[in-house]
């Protein structure tokens, strides 16, 4: 049994036994959906359908139904893409990196964080597809042997790297997530009364028997996948940032982008996890498992990454000035003072200023405040990508081609649709999957459970 110092706060509150944990976590799967779930699901589903309609309209008519023009050839599409990829970062970071660092507090949140990762990467993956003028030729980005002789993909293009990075990330995250789910599916299988349900979970749990050998393999696979996933956390957003960094456009052509994008991604990912978990713990009454300790830890990560992002913003400005390159200087001056100043300052205040409140322990342990900040951060991170993409493109080298961008209802509809799609997936997940990795959580019950800690304090260790 792992020993934990009494100075550490308990991670599981209340007088919990192993069976309590099982009951609590299986409850949403086994009980009928509450009314609030149906309301949320209906709203999300309508948004999703609206998005599907807008996507079909785009594919049927042409990209011209968006607000793009000859100067600004990417706007909301790629903004949304980068935003969703960024959100998809926290899951793997929590489950893989924190696993390697043996951070026990991740156990209560990693399942949902990973689910969020996968669902948001699905949203992200939509945009590179639908932004293509000829989506029916999308498979050409794959290096598929063909009858055209020497015709091949262009390995110089960061868009091609994107294809590999995103698909690898999605694959590894999904496998990692699924492996973690196996013992929990088995738990539900064992408890299921409805034969159909039992059969489904039987299939899903891959014949898990809870033998020592199974546990050993489980641990090993988790560790190997964590090792594989960790570099991906860095690589995915690094490569996404290279879509911009390898270009010649002032405001894009910046070597700071890879670390800056990764920090920003973790920042926004944690904010999104925060948003979702604050809702989940409330609705499914899991306050004992996802408690203030977890929230505070995540707020600290948000604060640190937010500050890193802030440093990056300021570094960009400094380098633009220091470089002496006229176009760079103007690009950054224009960001802050040009026609899109509001987007820039929305980004600055949401991403750099708002996380600084988290220095105060009182604020970072306040649930309502945390919830507001988590939303604000994600708005800010959306603006960051908008600022990078649109304000860099709208005034580049030749003033004759300067332009402005305004979204059409289709642009907005597709974005809203992906939010709907994301929540459709997440809500379905919350009703059918164990939202907390209970098998893992049980391993720390006797070291980090409140009652056991108390017991230790009262009776001394051992």
């Amino acid at each position, binding site marked *: 049994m792992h020993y934990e110092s009494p100075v550490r706060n308990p991670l599981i509150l209340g007088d919990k036994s192993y069976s309590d944990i099982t009951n609590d976590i299986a409850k949403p799967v086994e009980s009928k959906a509450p009314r609030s779930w149906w309301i949320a699901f209906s709203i999300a589903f309508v948004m999703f359908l609206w998005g599907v309609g807008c996507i079909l309209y785009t594919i049927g*008519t*042409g*990209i*011209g139904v968006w*607000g*793009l*023009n*000859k*100067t600004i*050839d*990417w706007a909301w599409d790629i903004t949304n893409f980068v935003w969703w990829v960024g959100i998809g970062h926290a899951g793997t970071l929590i489950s893989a990196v924190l696993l390697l660092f043996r951070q026990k507090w991740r156990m209560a949140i990693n399942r949902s964080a990973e689910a969020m990762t996968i669902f948001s990467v699905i949203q992200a993956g939509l945009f*590179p597809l639908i*932004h*293509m*003028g*000829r*989506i029916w*030729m*999308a498979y*050409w*980005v794959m290096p598929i042997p063909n009858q055209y002789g020497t*015709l*091949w*993909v*262009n390995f*110089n*293009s*960061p*868009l*091609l790297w994107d*294809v590999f990075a995103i698909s690898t990330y999605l694959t590894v995250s999904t496998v990692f997530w699924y492996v973690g789910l196996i013992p929990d599916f088995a738990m539900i299988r064992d408890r299921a009364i409805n034969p159909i349900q039992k059969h489904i979970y039987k299939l899903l749990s891959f014949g898990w028997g809870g033998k020592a050998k199974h546990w050993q393999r489980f641990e090993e696979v988790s560790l190997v996948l964590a090792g594989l996933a960790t570099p991906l956390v860095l690589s995915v957003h690094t490569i996404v940032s290279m*879509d911009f960094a*390898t*270009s*010649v*456009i002032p405001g894009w052509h910046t070597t700071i982008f890879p670390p800056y994008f990764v920090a920003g991604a973790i920042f926004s990912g944690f904010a999104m996890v925060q948003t979702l978990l604050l809702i989940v713990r409330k609705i499914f009454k899991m306050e004992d498992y996802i408690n203030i300790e977890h929230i505070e830890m995540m707020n600290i990560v948000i604060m640190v990454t937010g500050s890193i992002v802030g440093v990056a913003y300021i570094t960009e400005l400094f380098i633009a000035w220091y470089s002496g390159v*006229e*176009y760079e*200087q*103007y690009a950054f*001056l*224009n960001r802050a*003072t040009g*026609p899109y100043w509001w987007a820039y300052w929305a980004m600055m205040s949401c991403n750099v200023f708002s996380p600084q409140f988290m220095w105060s322990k009182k604020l970072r342990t306040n649930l309502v405040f945390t919830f507001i900040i988590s939303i604000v951060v994600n708005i800010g991170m959306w603006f960051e990508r908008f600022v990078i993409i649109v304000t860099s*493109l*709208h*005034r*580049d*080298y*030749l*003033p*004759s*081609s*300067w*332009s*402005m*961008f*305004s979204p059409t209802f289709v642009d907005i509809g597709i974005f809203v649709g992906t939010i709907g799609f994301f929540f459709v997936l997440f809500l379905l997940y919350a009703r059918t999957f164990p939202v907390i990795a209970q098998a893992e959580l049980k391993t720390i019950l006797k070291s980090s459970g409140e009652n056991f800690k108390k017991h230790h304090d009262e009776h001394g260790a051992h």
Partner: protein
Amino acid sequence: MTENNKYWRGIEDQSNPELSEKLAQNEFSNEISQADFLGNDELAESSTSRRDFLKFMGFSTAAATLAACEAPIVESIPYVVKPDSLTPGIANYYASSFYDGYDFASVLVKTREGRPIKIEPNNDAIFNGATNARVQASVLSLYDGARMHSPMMDGAATSWKEAITKAQSLLTENSVLLTRTVISPALKSAIAKLGLRHVSVDAVSQSNRADVYEALTGVRGLPTVELAKARLVFAVGADFLGDWGGENLNSAYAAARKPGSDMLRHIQAESGLSLSGANADVRIKAKVSEYESVLAHVYNKVANAVGVATVSAPALREDIKLSVEGVANELIAAGSGSLVLNGLNSATAEKLAAKTNELLASEAFNTSRLDFTASGSDTDFAALLEDIKSGDVTSVVTLDTNVLHFSSAMASLAEKVSLVSIADRLDETASKAAVALPMSHYLEAWTDAIPVDGVYAVGQPTISPLFDSKSAVEIVNGLAGGSENAIDLIKASASTTGNAKAWNALLHDGFATTDKMVEMLYEVAPSVDLSDVKVSAPLKGLEFYTYTKAGMGAGSNANNPWTYELPDPVTRLSWDNYVVMSAADAVAYGVEVKAQSNGSMNGNTINITVDGTTLENVPVWIQPGQTQGSIGLAVGFGRTEAGKVGNNVGVNANSLLAPAVSYAEATVVATEVEHGFASVQLAHTMMGRKIVNEINLPTFLSGNAKEWNEKPTFESYKGPLTSFEANLWDDQDHETSHMWNMSIDLNSCTGCGACVVACSLENNVPVVGKDEVRRHRDMHWLRIDRYYSSDMTKEVAEEEGVGAIEKYAKMEVPSESPSVVFQPVMCQHCNHAPCETVCPVGATVHSREGLNHMAYNRCIGTRYCANNCPYKVRRFNWFNYQVNDKFTDVNPSQDDYGRMVLNPDVTVRARGVIEKCSLCIQRIQLGKLEAKKDGRQLTDGEFTTACAQACGSGAIVFGDVNNPKSEVSHLKQEERAYHLLEEVGTQPSIFYQTKVRNRA
């Protein structure tokens, strides 16, 4: 002795020769008996009987046959006997002449498989061999389905015989033939045969100017100009690069403006910013009503110097007085090298200009070689209107003049006369006519012309008439009772015009020199008499004037989408007609133009009242360089019967001001109505960047090119390197083969827009219409950027200690009296192309010949290339322009007729792919193939791009820099040469030549 060796085919051959022999004889050894073969028991048990099988078989065969029959039927008829002159895939060229009452040009018509698809300049022509934007666009008007398909009588189609009979019945002795200027001798003799009173009136009038020369020489016409002999040209309201005379002066201007100690200096005094004003070295802002007094003051100064009588003239405004005096001094100093041009349709102004030229003994001003292309008479027309009013004239035959559109006086009298209209469509005039006779487009008609004294030109049909129309000359001759064909009439005319060439040679060349029609060679130039000159006083209030646009001209292309899609060279607005107003006036009248969130521009509208007539809701464009107190509106717009493209675009300026009147006092009231502009350019200044490198002549003459044409360098361990030396790439071999480069001389480019239209024609560039242009989605492969100077510069900011934020904000604001530069920008064919590296599928790749290729078939439309293009020249197909309903009215490729204009050598791009300038790869390939067939080297200038070909001023030169004898390789060595955004390191194949202004 040979041995008869035995070779075995296999081991069996040796071991058992008998068997192998037997097997060889019997190829199908295991014969199956028929009974065995058919005796398959399972077959008998099958539920499908033999009859069923036959049924199925029969059905499938029939179905397959029927399905095959449903393949789309392509209506094409192969040649039974192929004409000798025509090979499918090979273009034929015919010389012809364009004249629409406004522009004259000697052209070559490119036809493919019998269809005219492109107008090209006739470089051998002695008069107007160049093509402007309107002439380039004219080929599309041929394929305009809105043209009349047959003669019309009372709104119904009829036959020629009936229509002519009916028309003849309407004609009386008092009938009048009303035409635009007629320069065709054949048409003139047909008119003479008809015997009616002939009145000609022009939609853009030069009548009062022509009156001066008629009085002077006895011949009605306008003077011609030899810019080569001038060292200083002072133009007052004369947009001689645009619409001033019939003569195309672009090439002469460019030649005279070649930087050097003898470079032509150009001073322009004008109200609105015209092409000429934009190109001038010095521009004086004068109201139209001040033109006369400006000319008078210059004249008086010159007269004083020469010692002849002056004229009395009202005082000049204080702020232009000094500059006008300065001009006069310069003119005196330049002596016979000076030239004064007047653009005002006023006898007084013209006399003053002519007299000033006379006093200065200007060698460039030629009154003995008159231009006849605008010789209509407003006096005759006014008399006609009086006669109609009094009832003396009861029937009018109009010939190719849309008089009811440009003359509101005539329109109000239209009820009093019966009209016979010879027109190409049921326009505002022909739709009111009792009989409307369809006139062929010039590409399907026989024409001839004497555009200028001593030049005879013919126009030949290049296609059978698409509709039941006839050449104008044949119609008039028919009305006069004649029955000759057009060709015979033109032949007869050619034989009597005294031209030096035989008929076939004449057709081949398209023109000939001829004896002067009227002897006008004077020993001494006739002297202009100023005794009756009265200089009118400038208007105190707001003046309103009309002008012409580069695309629209006088309006004969009013249903031609290319005319509208071409942005105005100065305002950069397309698909619109609007009032140009100075910023100060805009503040005074409370109007604004504002950028919208999507980059489009919206502005206020005004009601303009002139002489009791009000034109409502006219949009206002705030124009830098516009003279305060003067507002202008272009003519030719506001059509209601032009066709689906041109109807209801803009307002009709002539409803306020007849063509005969140059300006009038107006009152203006701002309205609540907002107007959306289609502006292709949102920012108007260069923001202190070296985009157009511009210097003044003394700097150029100082010879220190390293300073005024500094190449950007990068610090390195090898010392400073240029962007061509600092290289991280494995370069392609650009030395052994061709290396196509293009030089664009910014000093020669006048911004006229001919190249833009030529490029659209050659490359099937889609027309996208106002709404899409408004969203900055114009598809032009070649655009002409226009920049104004700003009062705020980096130097001023440093001097005044202005901070960066304020500096850049002020730099965005154009000066009120800006210097204007034009810069044609197309794909720069970068040898280190940013677009090529980022395409995930390799759809855009580089050639060894220095070209950046675009493989439409491979493009999946990520648009990353367009984002990463520093020049923003890549265009994305946002919609399927060939089928999308939004473009039905504007895109010629959605029309069965319009589609015929498409160049078969260039793919029409599908939705979702990027397109861009290919440097006319189809022409390069054709040229290379021709040379290969002949087994010879390519020679310089054998072929060129559409833009370079259309450029009248020779600003664009295309060629192979690996050929040391090529013009472009010499130009590349010029000290004025530079690459656009060289510091980005793109190593473009296109380079520019520094603009030099002749001022201190």
